């Protein structure tokens, strides 16, 4: 059996929204249960797709996994070790192992940073390598994500790049610290349909070549099918169904999963709607 890389135990996150002065005084509070009682396992070298509608809690769960968010209750275990409450140097060490790629490529890079600076930043922040080693690793990462010739991109600023190229920079940035886990939060949903497949293929190739585990967040089951071995379906903060990708698509148990499949089928070219 492949060992677990990361595991959650009844992980929950509740946001408390103050509802305004009067309601606040009256003691009324709107709680948002963004993630509730989630038990999720990601094995070494595995891609798990997290699917669900907007607002179902996918991003929140992703951010909990890389500890960008503190859980309200429950646990996050990394290679058997409890990382739910670590802070400071320990947390930084964990973050080096667990990287995240964000949805919006137009927002996730500092507009003032060149590509070389953006990709090199994690190395500098984690204090990895000498200056020369870092330069070498930056070049390597850029060529791994297909931004070649590397010299053409090193000095570019984000506004000079297309969405797909920016997303490749974000992947390079995550890759450069050699993580064990990458959480990819809808990495292609803001991209043009014509460049999506390129970014997905890249992520898959890199994941396979380096044996990295990946949590691939999406609302598109067809993309999930292409990327993952296992799928977890989220609805209203809970995982309502999970299982091997092909089984789950062929034989959905939960009505919500069926709804997602129906929605994806409607846009499937060549698929005849049953109506």
């Amino acid at each position, binding site marked *: 059996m492949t060992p677990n890389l990361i595991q959650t135990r009844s992980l929950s996150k509740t946001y408390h929204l103050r509802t305004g002065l009067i309601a606040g005084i009256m003691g009324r509070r709107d709680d948002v249960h963004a993630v509730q009682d989630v038990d999720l396992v990601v094995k070494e070298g595995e891609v798990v797709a997290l699917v669900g509608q907007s607002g179902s809690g996918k991003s929140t769960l992703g951010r909990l996994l890389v500890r960008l968010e503190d859980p309200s209750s429950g646990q996050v275990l990394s290679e058997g070790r409890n990382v739910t409450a670590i802070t400071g140097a320990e947390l930084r060490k964990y973050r080096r192992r667990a990287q995240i790629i964000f949805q919006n490529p137009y927002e996730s890079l500092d507009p003032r940073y060149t590509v070389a600076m953006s990709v090199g930043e994690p190395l500098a922040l984690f204090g990895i390598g000498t200056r020369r080693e870092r330069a070498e690793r930056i070049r390597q990462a850029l060529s791994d994500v297909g931004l070649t010739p590397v010299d053409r991109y090193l000095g570019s600023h984000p506004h000079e790049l297309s969405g797909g190229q920016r997303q490749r920079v974000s992947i390079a940035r995550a890759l450069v610290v050699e993580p064990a886990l990458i959480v990819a939060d809808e990495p292609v949903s803001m991209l043009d*349909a014509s460049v999506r*497949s390129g970014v997905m*293929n890249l992520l898959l190739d890199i994941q396979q070549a380096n044996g990295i585990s990946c949590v691939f967040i999406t609302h598109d089951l*067809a993309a999930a099918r292409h990327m993952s071995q296992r799928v977890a379906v989220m609805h209203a903060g809970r995982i309502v169904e999970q299982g091997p990708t092909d089984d789950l698509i062929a034989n959905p148990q939960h009505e919500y999963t069926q709804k*997602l499949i129906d929605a994806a089928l409607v846009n*499937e070219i060549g698929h005849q709607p049953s109506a």
Partner: protein
Amino acid sequence: MTGGSFVEVRGLRVGYKVPHGVVQAIDGVDLTIDRGEALGIVGESGCGKSTLGLGLLRLLPSNATTSVDTFRVGDTDVAGLSQAAFRREVRWKRVSMVFQSAMNSLNPVRRVGEQVADAYRLHHPQASKREVQARVDRLFELVDIPRARQRNYAHEYSGGMRQRAVIALSLVCDPDVVIADEATTALDVVVQNQILDALADLRTELGIALIVISHDIGVISHTCDRVAVMYAGQVVESGAVADVLASPRHPYTASLMAALPRLTGPRFRPVSLPGSPPDLADPPTACRFAPRCPIAADICTDVPPAFDPDHRWPARCHFAGDERLRQLGTERTS
């Protein structure tokens, strides 16, 4: 074909003046649409889709120059109208648009119902209070938002509801033609389908000629009767959705199809198109797609391909309908 279709556009050209020349964002586009029909415009970011819609509505920024040989809606020769007459008679009354990312530009401090009422009053200053309310109720009914939600503010709406409200805004004047620019791109699949279905219903119910702009060929296949595939400011293939998507004749269309992951059928590795689209200020002189084309030959960089108007679904390619296109996107994965 003379005057057969309800809407006819011939020879539309739009150029943007930029410091280093002119970006020819639309370079000779022809379109025809009938009442109750939906035409899809598909193409990647920057190929000129929004420019096309804005150009038809004469809403382009001041650095743009537009020319069109024919623009006819019903019996009206729209191309010949003055600016004032166009604004008075055509814009929003006969042709309206759902703007790209408009759902994020609803006024945050005005109730959604009031915003729709405002839009109606703008075009019907004489309308009585009762008439306005009746119209607003009807519009909300059309886009399927409960009447009670008229009193909400935009931030109290979900993304899908906001998009419906924006569609309602485009319908205030009972237009003949509606252009929906990326109306569902920011939404998740489930909501996306609800919106697309709402649009399709409206089109049949109201007899609207609908233009659906999207970079997602899946969206087009679901909603449209016909499709025009755009690349670098030109239409490279057009025809009935059933024809074009079943056997694309242009390599760009074929690549777009092969790039889509599928939920059914054998697992395959989606193809990714190499390179990036050409600089529209200085496009390749012959075939614009040649530098990225999987089947390009010498002739493609020397001779501009013609758009064969006699074919049922013409394609702007020397090798239109080539056998090799069928091989695209058949590389299986495990």
